[in-house]
């Protein structure tokens, strides 16, 4: 595929991620922080986010599977996930954590379990889309093009 096409795809994909609420302004902040001294900053931070989130989602699954659920622990994990998703601009993941925390407070296992499914879903969606974004970036660079600046 030629560079122009790839660049167009990149622009469209990025725009749709923002438009559909998968990403918010905080992701733009990350992109702006990337520079020559740290050209892979965004990929590095997002990779950390993927690793950390998967760990937290596993912990949450385990915690909610217990006979006697430790809601404080569950809440602590959700707080972490809310924080990191907020910091990278993964808006829909962040938003899915709000209700989760409320149900932790109410100690409602069923509702928490449903929230976890929702958070997992949102996480997988944004992960998929971000991986596509990074792949497009790599393809553009490999084809000798430059990454379009998004307004």
């Amino acid at each position, binding site marked *: 595929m030629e560079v122009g096409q790839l660049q167009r795809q990149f622009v469209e994909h990025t725009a749709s991620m923002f438009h559909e609420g998968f990403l918010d302004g905080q992701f733009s902040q990350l992109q*702006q922080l990337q520079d020559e001294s740290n050209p892979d900053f965004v990929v590095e931070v997002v990779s*950390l986010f993927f690793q950390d989130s998967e760990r937290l989602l596993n912990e949450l699954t385990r915690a909610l599977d217990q006979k006697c659920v430790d809601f404080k622990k569950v809440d602590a994990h959700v707080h972490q996930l809310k924080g990191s998703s907020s*910091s990278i601009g993964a808006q829909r993941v962040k938003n899915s954590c709000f209700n989760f925390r409320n149900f932790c407070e109410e100690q409602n296992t069923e509702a928490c379990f449903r929230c976890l499914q929702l958070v997992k879903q949102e996480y997988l969606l944004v992960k998929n889309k971000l991986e596509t974004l990074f792949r497009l970036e790599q393809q553009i660079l490999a084809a000798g093009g430059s990454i379009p600046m998004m307004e």
Partner: protein
Amino acid sequence: MDSASSSLSKGMIDDGNEPHVLAVDDNLIDRKLVEKLLKNSACKVTTAENGLRALELLGLGDDQKNNLKTSGSKVNLIITDYCMPGMTGYDLLKKVKESNVMKEVPVVIMSSENIPTRINKCLEEGAQMFMLKPLKQADVKKLRCQLMA
């Protein structure tokens, strides 16, 4: 050369050297982000993942050997998350302000939650500033300007 006797501004403008900031946060992603934000604002950064580690680095912990002062890197600013397991950012703030050696070092508290009582509590305890997460470049640039004035 005791840090307790140097004034705030003298501590910050260290012969044109970059200010050294100690950033404390239990969240890995937030640590990486705050580190980059500070480095982009021409600061030297050391990160700590909890209050106890921060105290150690400041030379206020039980383990006196492994602190930044012995390596010659005086801390000019502490920026800490409020919500951390074990020692909160507030607890850390109190410990710093109680210390004769460190009490002049400005402490900034960050939090993802905008709770006025929490903010006031920190300011009353001597926090220089409160910042809402997620941090943005503009916030950190403003912080740098204010503390270098």
